[in-house]
């Protein structure tokens, strides 16, 4: 699947299309959410795959570190690629 209209790479996991493979650049946003994401293993440099997007576009399922974790759009937006 192609990224919708946006040329080049998606800025964060929230904009990534299904099947997207990439690397986390950094985690930025609400401090509590960022810390929770980091502790779950969303660390810079980590390879991620966007596995699925639920109906209504939210949440998204992301594969990393050998498992799949579902994040809401707001949380996925903190994970920048």
């Amino acid at each position, binding site marked *: 699947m192609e990224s919708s209209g946006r040329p080049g790479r998606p800025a964060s996991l929230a904009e990534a299309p299904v099947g997207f493979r990439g690397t986390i650049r950094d*985690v930025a946003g*609400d401090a*509590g*959410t*960022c*810390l*929770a*994401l*980091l*502790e*779950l*293993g969303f*660390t*810079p440099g980590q*390879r991620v*795959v966007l*596995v*699925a*997007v*639920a*109906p*209504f*576009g*939210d*949440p998204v*399922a992301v*594969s*990393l*570190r*050998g*498992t*799949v*974790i*579902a*994040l*809401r759009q*707001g*949380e996925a937006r903190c994970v920048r690629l």
Partner: protein
Amino acid sequence: MPSIGRPTVALLGQPNCGKTTLFNALTGFRNRTVNYPGATVEWAIGPLRASLGLDADLVDLPGLTSLVPRSPDEAVTVRSLFGQADHERPAAVVVVVDSSQLSRHLYVARQALDAGLPVVVAATMGDLLARRGLALSVADLQRRLGCPVDAIDARTGDGIDGLVRLIRGVLEAPPPNAPRPVAAVLADGVLASYREIESMERDCLTPVPLPGLHLGGAAPDVDVFTARIDRWLLHPVCGLFIFGLVMVGLFASVFLLARPLMDLIDGLFAASAAWIVALSPDSLLVRLLGDGIVRGVGAVLVFLPQIVVLFLGIGFLEDSGYLARAAVLVDRPLAAIGLNGRSFVPLLSGFACAIPGMLAARTVSDRRERLLTIFVMPLMSCSARLPVYALLLAFLTPNDRPWIGGLALAALYLCSVASGAIVAGLVSRLLPRTGPSRFMLELPVYRAPRLGSILTATVDRSRHYLVKAGVPIVVISAALWLLCNLPVASTAGLSPGESRARQLEASYAGRAGKCIEPLMEPLGLDWRVGGSMVAAFAAREAFVGALAVILTVSSGDPGSRESLLLSMRAATRADGTPLFTTAATVGLVVFFVFALQCLSTLAVSAREAGSWLMPLVQLVSFTGFAYAAAFLVVTGLRAAGVD
């Protein structure tokens, strides 16, 4: 709580790490759940199996992603590891790590080691790791972590003996210095920790050439099988369709599978009650035992098949990994009304009984969302409403069109879901949110469900119904029987049926029914239905039995619904017009859809919310709304010419 002198061993790990499977393998399913004093955290505790040769209690702590707590419940769990809050400190902590996602799970192990806890690491899911062409070197992990490590498979029992030897080693070693709780973590600390863990991971995981499996090339980071299924189950269209099918299948099986067993239990208890009463029909005590207590126990047990079947279904879906996907599918709609995808399983349980549902809401980590889940729980159509619906819909359904009853029942379930959604949406708009709502749910790998763990979970949840709802229902039905039969009225010269009616009219319950008659009048009903509705506040299903007693059908064949239907049709008011008109009966159904009529639910709601404010608001608003809705429906139907 653990007995004196016997050491406690705690199981710690992330959600889905295989902790509970290991717990069951080590304790042989002999365990009980304990409630942490003053908190809504519950964990299982049990002695190690005697054949393992180690005398210790094992505690299964709730899953944690970090030793830095993010909710009050997590704080209780973390505190228990450090022996605070007057709880004995565990003498050994087994950190369970999923070796197919080693880095994330070692994060908690590292935190536990840094805190100075006496740690033994148990590495599970070696089979999933092998499916990716990798193997774990236990010796290397042991060297890098600096603590004992064992690879286990709790499903087959491999490695369990070795793990017990390692636990014994920790217990026999001189006690270490007191552990220090982990201070707040900073982003830099997390990153440093992960960098170190990643280097460990590179050291400890070695590729194994498996014949026939992707030779060469990088190991896939996703379980291929799981990813293939998720493409369909999380698909925006197919996913929702399959979700709908699964839910319809779940509820259909509850009705179809439980029905024969329910009839059996019903018949059995009615027969034994009749047998007991026949022993000495004149003794008040014998009648209390037979008609009051035995029937009361029967009224509780008759729902057990439905509750067990629903929980078996939930357990099957949970253990296979599907319920996590279902939570993802419904998170967006639930978030819109102030709930969370995690509220889904508790609300689903609420269709069996509100009490296990409210207890399951403990898995909703955000306090506001948890309280809101508990608040709307009584609106979910629990199984105790079914006998009432069954009776009233049978009364309303024309004999030549039986499908109308089925359709009406489905409509009542939809009504229950819709009212829950509207109430949750309204309340969440009225009470502004203080912190951000989070979801972040791991979707575990699909696995074949294991009968053992499904059965333990089902027994556990059903026990909540039996103990927390059952005991009050039995006590209240015995008390209610006394209220219906005291003071003893003179019934000389009357037929058995007439004398029972006379007795009831003169009893305390009959007088109470007459007191609330002014309230029943606008609904087109009289004190007889009012008395039954008073009984329904003990337990909804008590309505049917009380109505049977009041309408004097119990003289001949107490268990038969047909005889009750006949006497409902025959019942008249003082002026000779029929009591149960179509309008009044529909109004009665509407009342039962919304009203909170269960004392046990109120008690559990108060305990889970930590105050009586919530159950009071629930009782007044739901029952008040039910009354208003019933009144509007009755008045509307009459105005439309239906009576």
